[in-house]
């Protein structure tokens, strides 16, 4: 295991949809033990970046390395090193959470005893143990999101990629997720979390990357971004960085 390699390194990443450049020469890094917030307005390229990092989209230029493994060179080894919580969960409607996690554990070849322990722990933390026997199609949006998070973290990957993970979660689950991510960071694992909730980013993340129209506009700790702006909040900084000149007040 490449202990010194950063969990995620993105170098000059570009992805286009036809003529539209969704991600334009983006570079960023998630260091071991770091929670990085990935912020940007709608259509800024956050989800596209995460999907490229997960190998679901191919980059048109640039390079993505997951825990020292270049995604394009060794995709299978790279896939084993991250867990993705997508914006819309990838679930099997007619499986129960337990059956689904068992299937995911088999995909990642997690030793059965460890998989059972982790699945139980994750479901317990998200208060899902009682619903382990329900079909996913009958679960609420929040419950499905919790199962999606549990599936992404079941193999305890060096990197967690989370796309709007708080969608549909109740305050208890939000707290549980924050605690979980902090514990992961404390163990030296990396987290890249895309969110619209600037307060969450400000309190949870060690560092924040703001993108707009596919380009990085700012990067730093919340304190660094606020430096020199008296009485400003992260929201003010975000709005200032992501407003188009023609639409800015």
């Amino acid at each position: 295991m490449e202990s010194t390699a950063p969990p995620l390194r993105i170098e000059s990443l570009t992805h286009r949809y036809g003529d539209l450049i969704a991600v334009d020469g983006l570079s960023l890094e998630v260091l071991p033990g770091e929670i990085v917030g990935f912020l940007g307005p709608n259509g800024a390229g956050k989800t596209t970046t995460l999907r490229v990092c997960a190998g679901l989209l191919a980059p048109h230029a640039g390079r993505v390395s997951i825990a020292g493994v270049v995604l394009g060179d060794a995709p299978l080894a790279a896939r084993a090193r991250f867990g993705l919580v997508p914006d819309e969960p990838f679930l099997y409607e007619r499986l129960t959470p337990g059956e689904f996690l068992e299937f995911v554990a088999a995909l990642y070849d997690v030793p059965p005893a460890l998989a059972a322990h982790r699945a139980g722990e994750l479901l317990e933390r998200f208060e899902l143990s009682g619903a382990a026997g329900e079909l996913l199609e009958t679960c609420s949006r929040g419950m499905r999101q919790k199962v999606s998070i549990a599936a992404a973290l079941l193999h305890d990957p060096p990197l967690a990629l989370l796309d709007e993970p708080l969608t549909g979660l109740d305050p208890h689950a939000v707290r549980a997720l924050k605690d979980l991510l902090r514990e992961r960071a404390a163990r030296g694992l990396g987290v890249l979390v895309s969110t619209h909730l600037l307060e969450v980013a400000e309190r949870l993340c060690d560092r924040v990357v703001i993108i707009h129209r596919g380009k990085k506009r700012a990067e730093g700790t919340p304190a660094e971004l606020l430096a020199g702006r008296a009485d400003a909040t992260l929201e003010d900084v975000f709005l200032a960085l992501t407003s188009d000149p023609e639409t800015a007040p």
Partner: protein
Amino acid sequence: MNPRGVLLGRARALRNSLFERGRARAVLRPRGPLYSLALVAVAAWIAHSGFAALFAALARSGATPAELRAMLALALDLALAGLLLFDLESVVSTLILDRDLDLLRVAPLSSRAILGIKLLDAVPRTAAPLVVVALPALLAFAKTRPAPGAAWLAAPLVLALLWAIPLGAGTALTLALLARVPARRVRESLGLVSTLAFTGLWLLNLFVLPRIASEAGEPLERVRALVLAAAPALALTPGGWAATLFGGGAPGDLARSALALTGAAAASVALAAFAGGRHLAIVLAAARTPVARAGARRRRPRIAARRVPLVLAVMRRDRLLFVRDWTVLGDVLTGALLWTLVPLLSLPLQPLHSPALVRAMLLTLSVGMGYEIAARAFPLERRGAEWMRLAPIPARSWAVARLVSAGSLALALVAIAGASLGWAARLGPGDWLATLGLVLPALALSIAVGLWTGAVFGDPNWTSPRAVLTIGGRLVAAALVVAQVAGWLTLTAVGESSPGPAGWLFTWLPGAVAAGLCALATRAVARRIAAGYSH
């Protein structure tokens, strides 16, 4: 409601489903559904060629105008049956399962207005039987008996009325049914209705068609005799009214047909509007209420004590997905029965001795399973299919695991059918060997081809379990099934009629060729998985 605005919005949605709109420039590029339309056009052209040949042959054999009109009526009624059997479910699915329904439900719209909008949405999805059967039949008929200008002007209206009759009445009946039965499992209920209707028609065909075919005489004469005998009944059907309007007749007949067709369509639409106003809100609410599994277990998740290989994990998952979607399971079981019975159609025409008949039945069943099980495997996963690209597993391993999984489900059904038929026909060891030598390669090939069809044409957002492939995909899948059945049955027949080593070659060589083709199809599936099935 602003009808102009609503119509404009639906027209834009339709245009955007056919053409990809460039975001930077206003460029329109064709999208998947447009290619499906191209396939529909090809099917229509083939149907037109067939109808044209039939009408020309009938005219040459001295068929009267009344006989030709009766033949046209039969074709139009066939299109109606197609609409009723295959597309009614699509309409009702559109009506109660489409994604924009919640938006429409919270808008200040009456149930009748929602019904109208959704029926309008259903036009492109349900026009296939009219475009593939009715329109080619009209055009072919006009080649033999040129129609007056007024008939051509009326043709679009006639087709629209033909469309409205089965769908209006069918929608009304289905809504009434769904409002009364526990409609929490609406999709399943619809699937079951469709499956039962399909099975009923199929069984009817099984017993009626062979008897028609077994009568003595030239095929064309038999068709003429059949059409002549059915003409009085056909004249009282929507197809008969439409044929009279298009094919000409006495002024009194024309007026009566126009009145009957318009009246039937109006009554049908009125019935749908009445049922929509009365039942739609209840059905929509019920359709959106999730239903908990009976006796759901409240316990911690069970994780297998041993490491589970990918193949076994995929097999377990597929088994659960198939078994828990009981409409799909019902469809598969019904399909298995019907595919097995296909060769019986030829019994009155060509008596077969038992081993050959068993072989033919198992061959059609094996090929059919490729469509019924394998082609559904990818779409059945919906968004879960993304795990094939997320998990650290090579695409070829996925393809092989899926082949084994779908194959094992199909093999179970083939084994049950084989054991029953073999026991009934008292097959000897030699017969078994020859049968398995053909059936197993046919099953492997059909599963691989079915997987490829599902991977390429599967629709992860399907709403009807009978339509998990795109329209184009269904046409391609049907063509591939027909080609496989024809190929295997031909090879079997040639092998049986060839004595000595040649016969042996015809029995075993196809197996080797099928294995090669199966490998090619599996590679294509792996490539599709690597490229992203749902993208």
